[in-house]
C-alpha cells in the first residue's frame, strides 16, 4: 500500500468521515480514494478543486498567503480540503457527527506526508 493510501485510510478512520481522497488540484480529478460512501468521487474532486482554486486566488489578493485548510460546512455534513503542495489536495467528506478537529489534523498530517 502506498503512503498516500495509508494516509487516506487514517483520515477515513476518523469518526463521521465518509471517505477521503487525493485530488489533482489544477484539473479536479481523483488520484486516489479511500472508502467513499454514497458520494460520487468525481464530483467531490471537481467541486473541491474548483472551490479551492477560487479561494486561493481570493486569499492571495487579501494578502493572507496560501490556504492551508478549507472547510465547507453544510446543514448535514462538511467538506474538508487541505492543499499538499501546489498540485494536490487531500479532501475528506464527513457527516454531521464528524470529529472535525481530528479530521483536520489527520488531513494536515496526510498532506505533509504526501507533499
Amino acid at each position, binding site marked *: 500500500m502506498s503512503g498516500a493510501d495509508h494516509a487516506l485510510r487514517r483520515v477515513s478512520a476518523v469518526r463521521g468521515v465518509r471517505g477521503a481522497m487525493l485530488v489533482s488540484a489544477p484539473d479536479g480529478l481523483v488520484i486516489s480514494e479511500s472508502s467513499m460512501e454514497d458520494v460520487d468521487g468525481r464530483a467531490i474532486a471537481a467541486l473541491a478543486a474548483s472551490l479551492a482554486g477560487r479561494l486561493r486566488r481570493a486569499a492571495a*489578493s*487579501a494578502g493572507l*498567503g496560501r490556504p*492551508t485548510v478549507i*472547510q*465547507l460546512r453544510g446543514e448535514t455534513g462538511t467538506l474538508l480540503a487541505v492543499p499538499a503542495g501546489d498540485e494536490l489536495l487531500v479532501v475528506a467528506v464527513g457527516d454531521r457527527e464528524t470529529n472535525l478537529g481530528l479530521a483536520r489534523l489527520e488531513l494536515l498530517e496526510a498532506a505533509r506526508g504526501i507533499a
Partner: protein
Amino acid sequence: MNDDVRALTSELARDPGSLVFLDLAEVLRRRGQLDAALTVAASGLARYPALADAHALHARILAERGDGDGAFDGWMNALQLEPAHQAAHRGLGFLYYRAGDLARALRHLEFAAQAAPEDAGLRAAIERVRVAAAPAPAEALAGGTAAGEVVAEAAPAPTSRAIPFAIDSGSGTSSESELFAGLDGARDGLLLLDQHGLRLGGALRNEDGADVSDAVAAHLAGVSREAARAARLLGLGEWQSLGVECEDGNAHLVAPTAETVLLTVRDVSVPAGRLGLVAERAAQAARRWLERVA
C-alpha cells in the same frame, strides 16, 4: 469622408492582403454603413483569423447591428488571441452591463482601463457601474466612448437592478458606517459583498494597510453560488459557512442573506472556531443593516 472610403477601397483593391481593411471597415462603420463595414471586416477576418483586432472590429460592427451574441463571440475570440485587448474588454464590459452581470462588466472595464488609464470616459463608466444605480445605460456609459454609444443605443435597459442601495467606495455613507458599528475589525476585517462580487460595506486591508476590498470582492464573485452548488451536489444540505485557514491569516465566509456574502478576516492568532463566532455576530449586524437600507 467619401474620399477616405474611395482611397481606402482602391488601396485594398491594389493589395487585398494588406491590413487596410481594418481602416476601411472602421470608416464605413463610423459612417453608419454597417452592411458594407461588415462585409469588409468579415473578409478581412477570413484572411486573418488570428488577428485580434479583426475579431474586435467585426464584433463591434455586429454589436451595432444588434447581434449581441455574435459580438460576444467576436470579443471573446479577440481575448483568446490577445488577453489584454482593450477594445474587446471594453466591448464585453458593456455587453455584460447590458445583461445585468455587473461583476463581470466591472472586471472587463477595469481590464480595459489598465490599458488606457487616461481614458476618462472609461473611468467614469467604471464608477457608474460600481455605483450601479445608473438611471439608464445610455447615461451611465456616455462620456465619448464610442463602444459605449454603440451598445447603449442597441441596448434595452439593464435587466438586473438587484442592488437596492448605492455603493460608495469613498469614505463611507452614514448608513454604511452603521453597518458593523461597534464590532472589532469593522474597518479592516469585515467585508459585505453581493453575489456579483461588488462591495456593499465594510473594508478589508492587507498587512501594509492598503485597501484590498474591491480586489478580494471580485475574486469572491459567485463564491456563494459555488459553495451552494458543492454542498448540494455532495449531499451536505444548505451551505452554512466556508472557513479558510491561510499562512498569514484566517478567513470565514457566511451568507447573511441569499444575495449577500460576508467575509471575516483575522490574523492567525484568532482560532478558526472563534472566527466563526465573530462572523456570526457580524452576519446578524449585516442582516439588520440590510433590512434598514433596503
